[in-house]
């Protein structure tokens, strides 16, 4: 089966403008997470779409689903974890409880704060995860990337031709991801912020899916203002 997982475990500490986690802030006339959920639900290939929500915001999320008449049986909630990977594995646990577990199950994980994802990106993620087991959505880097190990001097300037900026979705064969994760030492688990890195560390190939420049992550106040302009709405502080 094919599952979507919208990752919204965060509590909005980087936005500074609001006590409301950023995924719940309004983009035009709807919370960002509702836009993201609507797009994921539009993909008929998903058997279910899970929302990994910070436990403190679960009831708020249920209220939002009621408010926007999102009563599809395909929508499921799972508690968010301490970090991104914890949330993914919480969702995987919920999937197991709800639907059991098959070797060819696929999970398409996506940031709640990337509402401008397209159906093409989602469809290509599903196809690649089925065929190759893992994929990551990226766009070619347009700025030169500079590496500094001490934050003072440049250590290295890698060739931009090989540089990409990671977006989401990131998609995996669930069984493969679980197997790889179980092999990691607790110390490795604590430094892994990106699920694709779990595969890369174990030398499992991760296919690239071309993202969209507009598939931006709304993280800062500036991002939020840009997103409002892109969506044609008016920013509300």
């Amino acid at each position: 089966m094919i599952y979507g997982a919208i990752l919204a475990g965060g509590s909005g500490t980087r936005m500074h403008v609001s006590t409301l986690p950023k995924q719940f802030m309004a983009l035009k006339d709807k919370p960002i997470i509702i836009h993201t959920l609507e797009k994921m639900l539009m993909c008929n290939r998903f058997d279910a779409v899970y929302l990994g929500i910070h436990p403190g915001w679960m009831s708020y999320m249920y209220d939002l689903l009621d408010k926007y008449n999102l009563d599809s049986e395909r929508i499921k909630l799972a508690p968010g974890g301490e970090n991104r990977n914890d949330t993914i594995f919480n969702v995987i646990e919920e999937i197991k409880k709800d639907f059991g577990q098959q070797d060819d199950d696929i999970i398409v994980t996506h940031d709640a704060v990337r509402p401008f994802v397209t159906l093409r990106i989602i469809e290509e993620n599903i196809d690649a995860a089925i065929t190759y087991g893992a994929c990551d959505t990226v766009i070619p880097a347009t700025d030169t990337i500079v590496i500094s190990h001490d934050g003072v001097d440049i250590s290295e300037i890698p060739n931009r031709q090989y540089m990409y900026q990671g977006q989401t979705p990131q998609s995996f064969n669930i069984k493969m991801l679980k197997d790889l994760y179980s092999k990691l030492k607790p110390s490795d688990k604590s430094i892994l912020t990106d699920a694709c890195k779990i595969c890369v560390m174990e030398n499992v190939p991760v296919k690239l899916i071309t993202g969209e420049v507009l598939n931006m992550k709304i993280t800062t106040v500036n991002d939020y203002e840009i997103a409002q302009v892109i969506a044609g709405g008016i920013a509300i502080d």
Partner: protein
Amino acid sequence: MINYVYQLVSPQFFSVKLDDVDIDGKVVVRPRYMSICHADQRYYQGNRDIKILSQKLPMALIHECSGEVLEDRSGRFKPGQPVVMIPNMPKRHSNYIYENYDEQSIFLSSTADGFMREFVDMPVDRVIPCDGIPMDIACICEFYSVAVHAVNRLINFAHQQRETIAIWGDGSLAYVIASALKVKNPESKIIVIGRNSRKLSRFSFVNKTYLSYSLPSDLQFDHAFECAGGEGSYDAINNIINYIKPQGTVVLMGVSENQVAINTRLLLEKGLTVVGSSRSGKKDFEEAVDLMRTQRIRRRLGSIIFEDKPVSSIDDIHRVFTTDLNTPFKTVFNWRL
């Protein structure tokens, strides 16, 4: 829901507009296959009056499209159901004027955004199921429905002597007219007149083809379709007036950016009926879909389709419009954006 709309901003320049769409009461369709019309190509190349271009653009192109239903809260369509979409959006009903001639009607890719979008939100009555018809063929349903409409126009206007019907033109429009005429008026002999012998050789199912520069002096026909358009309109229309029998009906279909001088003296002497035919309406679409369920018709239509590689980026959109300039018939492509 946020939608990506791929608009032509100026000739050969696309931009993405994000649109927050209210899908309540609409059928949400994911376009799967599209086909390029000459009208789209004229916008893309900038071969329209600059004043018209500045009024119409930015606008998403393409009005020939098949797709898959993503959601329909009315319950009439199932998710995943294959459909074709009618680009004509009437604003009122009239007992006398067809919806495709009503000045108040909206036509997608002419007076509103066409189908080059991530998804299309359609009124329920503008969506027609096309189960059983492959998507790459179903996408030219609009084009075929234009032919069905034109043949219906002829049937409504022409007198009953219909022994021979001529089609002037050898392109894709002439081909679909011939195809629709063959099934809707099987007792008539169909002749096709064109300039290109290779193109004419595709019309294997008509009774006779002629090259326009070597027509027999005794050529005659009862009624005719003009499917030349552009610079060819002048010769096509005047030749039809020359060769058609008195009181024949001429259906004009080719679009010309310039005004065309025609032999009105002979037209009047022969008492001809000239009928304009453009676009199509819901009934024509329904009839076209029904006809396309017949394998023989699908095969016939399939022979004028050139499928280009899928479109997954704006660069790919440029590619298919370039391909279309170099293919004699219809360019279709899988839409993945």
